[in-house]
């Protein structure tokens, strides 16, 4: 399986340098479309995105990303908001905010 990256060209260049080839540059493809095709691609195991990009997605896609296990979505950057979804999930399931 492969890793995949969605983001603007500044964000994806570094990952390209690390050898990742399944890259969706949002300057040449719409963000929604890129996310949809990455989620449907069976060969993608991990999907890397920037938090700011995730935040501008429509709610349904955001939910699909949060719930997706394959590919697993890892978000980076965006002022330490990366773990907020997991935090919400913990609060909902355990009842206490343990991600402090």
């Amino acid at each position, binding site marked *: 399986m492969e890793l995949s990256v969605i983001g603007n060209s*500044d964000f994806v*260049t*570094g990952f390209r*340098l690390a*050898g*990742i080839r399944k890259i969706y540059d949002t300057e040449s493809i719409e963000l929604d479309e890129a996310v949809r095709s990455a989620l449907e691609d069976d060969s993608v*195991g991990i999907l890397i995105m920037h938090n700011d990009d995730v935040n501008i997605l429509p709610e349904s896609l955001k939910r699909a990303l949060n719930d997706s296990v394959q590919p697993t979505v*890892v978000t980076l950057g965006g002022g330490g908001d*990366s773990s907020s979804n997991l935090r919400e999930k913990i609060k909902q399931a355990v009842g206490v905010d343990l991600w402090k």
Partner: protein
Amino acid sequence: MAVKDVKPTRSELQALQKRIKLSKNGHKLLKMKRDGLIMEFFKILDKARNVREELDKAYEDAVLASNLASAVEGSIALKSASFSVNVVPSIELKNTNIMGVVVPEIRGSDVHKQLHTRGYGVVGTNAYIDEAADTYEILVEKIIVAAELETTMKRLLDDIEKTKRRVNALEFKVIPELEESVSFIKLRLEEMERESLSSLKKIKGKSA
């Protein structure tokens, strides 16, 4: 099951008592499963938190190194070097089982590469690009670890929630309703017994 839908018969009473016993057993087992899942969750919680911190730090380092390389060498040169990397990192997904919850075990390969195996020319590029490539490779390694832990946590949390709902449904809905039906049948049967006894007495009184 609403009380009014229950037939007040002995066979129904026996069937309900069997169901109560089964529900109580299930409730006990599900409670144990929920506690076990929460313990497993606590085991990986600290690990996941640390990995997330390391990941954020690695991302900052990688962005810094990439910006530096871009400033020194120019963004075109950086992009050109990035397009010539030909060793693609891959991941292997294996499934492991934690108390009935299938969680992934992710192993990465070809993530961290030697300088000469990256694919771009050593002469045409400088150390800043190597540094940027290095930091991004470290970042990808951290991403793989974080992906495994965060997926495991997501799955465990989903299952904890599901199990919690089942436990609560059994404890506060199913078992109390069944017990209510049992007590209704018992009362009804006793009443029927009293009715038949009094009618027998009446018949006996008439015939005497």
